[in-house]
């Protein structure tokens, strides 16, 4: 075991997969000598050289498109998008191509690409370095979207993504990079894509969320436990396609459901979660399904007080849980 933060866990997942499989390579802007703007590829260039750690020209559609080609051939590209906000020029390659290659060729071709993208706010990133973009892709069968909430999960999920034979979008929360640390086993392990995970068992209120919000909720749970408010916490992990069974079970567990996302509310991942619950758990519910989310403004502004106003916080979570508990 060794202590790693979320960022180090990601670097080490790539390092080990690069070591293990000659077909794995890293491809993105500034991933080489600089080691990535967040240093996620730190030292990999020195270790694996420019053949396998490739600095890409500034062209996201090209990065994803070239990686798709290499993946169809049989390589296993890890494409890095510098900020999730800049994945948008690559949407056509992701949705029209990566997502549809297996289906359109009736299983003749496939596309084992992993696209990593740092997302999320609370980092003074303003409108274009703070967004949660997962909802843009969460209506596209053929894609898998993974958002880890802890270093342990991040490492196991990134390895699973790289080994997956289908395209995976892997969103990493920027604030989590250095905020969250934990012990990580030395042995190789993966965490399966597609399965939500109960991160805390409880009886009063069910919280379903993903990404940084899982960490934030865990802090709140600790506090509320002292007051005998018992929270059941489901980490979605894979936000598309969702783990329906896991969601239904978690909702039924307490009958009071709080859904949380840092994304804008309308049309977010938690809307689908709510719809699944409303379709399947109606008679188990003791309270309306509550949603806590970012504001419906284009993204969080730069000015510190406004960013704070937008972001999910432990205070906001605590208040929402209390309200539900008292319902």
């Amino acid at each position, binding site marked *: 075991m060794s202590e790693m933060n979320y960022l180090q866990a990601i670097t080490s997942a790539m390092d080990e997969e690069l070591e293990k499989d000659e077909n794995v*390579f890293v491809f993105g802007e500034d991933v080489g000598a600089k080691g990535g703007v967040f240093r996620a590829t730190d030292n990999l260039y020195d270790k694996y050289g420019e*053949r396998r750690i490739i600095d*890409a*020209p500034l*062209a996201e*559609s*090209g990065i*994803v*498109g*070239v*990686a*798709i*080609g*290499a*993946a*169809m*051939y*049989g*390589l296993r590209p890890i494409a890095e998008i510098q900020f999730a906000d800049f994945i948008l*020029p690559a949407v*056509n*390659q992701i949705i*029209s*191509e990566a997502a*549809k*290659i*297996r*289906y*359109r*060729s*009736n*299983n*003749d*071709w*496939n596309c084992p690409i992993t696209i990593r993208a740092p997302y999320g706010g609370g980092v003074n990133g303003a409108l274009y370095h703070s967004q949660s973009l997962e909802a843009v892709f969460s209506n596209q*069968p*053929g894609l*898998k979207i993974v958002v880890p909430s802890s270093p342990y999960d991040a490492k196991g999920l990134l390895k699973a993504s790289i080994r*997956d*034979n*289908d395209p995976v979008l892997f969103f990493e929360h920027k604030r989590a990079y250095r905020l969250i640390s934990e012990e990580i086993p030395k042995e190789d392990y993966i965490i399966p894509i597609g399965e939500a995970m109960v991160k805390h068992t409880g009886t009063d209120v069910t919280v379903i969320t993903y990404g940084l919000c899982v960490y934030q909720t865990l802090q709140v749970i600790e506090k509320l436990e002292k007051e005998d408010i018992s929270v059941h916490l489901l980490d979605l992990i894979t936000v598309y396609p969702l783990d329906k069974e896991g969601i239904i079970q978690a909702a039924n567990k307490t009958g009071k459901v709080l859904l949380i996302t840092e994304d804008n509310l309308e049309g977010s991942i938690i809307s689908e979660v709510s719809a699944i619950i409303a379709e399947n758990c109606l008679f188990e519910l003791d309270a309306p399904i509550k949603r806590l989310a970012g504001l419906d403004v284009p993204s969080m502004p730069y000015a510190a007080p406004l960013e704070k106003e937008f972001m999910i916080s432990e205070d906001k979570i605590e208040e929402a849980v209390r309200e539900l508990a008292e319902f």
Partner: protein
Amino acid sequence: MTKAYHLKLGLSDEETLNMYRYMVLARRLDQRMLLLNRAGKAPFIVSGQGQEATQIGAGFALDLTQDYIAPYYRDLGLVLVAGMTAKEVMLHLFAKAEDPNSGGRQMAGHYGHKEKRIITGSSPVATQVPHAVGFALAAKYQKKDFVTLTTLGDGSTNQGDFHEGLNFAGVHQLPVITLVQNNKIAISVPFDKQVASKNIAIRASSYGMPGIEVDGNNPLEVYEAMKTAHERAKNGEGPTLIEAVVERLSAHSSDDNQNQYRTEEELAESKGRDCNLSFRNYLIEHELLTEEMETEMIKVIDKEINEATQYAEKAPYPHIDTINDYVYEM
């Protein structure tokens, strides 16, 4: 008498005749598909008539034992050379379960066949350009010497993906050939309203690669340019952009009526540059082809097309229970 062009290129008489056979096969197959469309038997076809010389000349320059192609929707001629059969094309047209391109899932003209190294394509134009570059990156990565060919239309070179893909190929000097089939129109929009550069070949200078313009009505000229590009690619000398100037003899697709936007003169002129006719003349002139040989050739081809049509028409559709298959690995 000077040596015939094809001999100078190292093409035997037989190979040259075989080129023509493919051009006739592509033309007649295309015509049959249009007829089937008009008869209400196939909802859609996108024709390659007028572009056979380019496609087949290009295909002949490839090493079909290892090269990859990322074609576009008009590339019937090219995929035939790559090994797709008339039967497979018809199964695709009719969207039947046995269609090797898509199992009946994609519209006609959306090729893909892994065994024959035809990379699966989609409808949004130019997305295949970065894919082909990705295959070329894989070749360099694995130190293999296969070459990847991708094709697209003139209008499609305006897409960002053309620019981004070719720039990457240029930076890394990858073994990829980009063949633009410039039929001087994109649906209804003529070249001068579509493309700001004087031709397509000059765009190569943005990507640090040679750009060659050739007469796409002459399969030998296309073959020659392709051979040079292929050599360069194999020798690690990097990518090439080839512009083949061709004719679009038919409407954009079976849904289009080109009288809406092209004059009769323009259409007649275009017809006058039919590559199949000019190459036929070349073969007759060089005594590679006689009328009898051609009659026999057509007979064999038509038989193949008839059988393909009959087989594909009768073949079953994919079963509705398969609709959820292969969204992900199963």
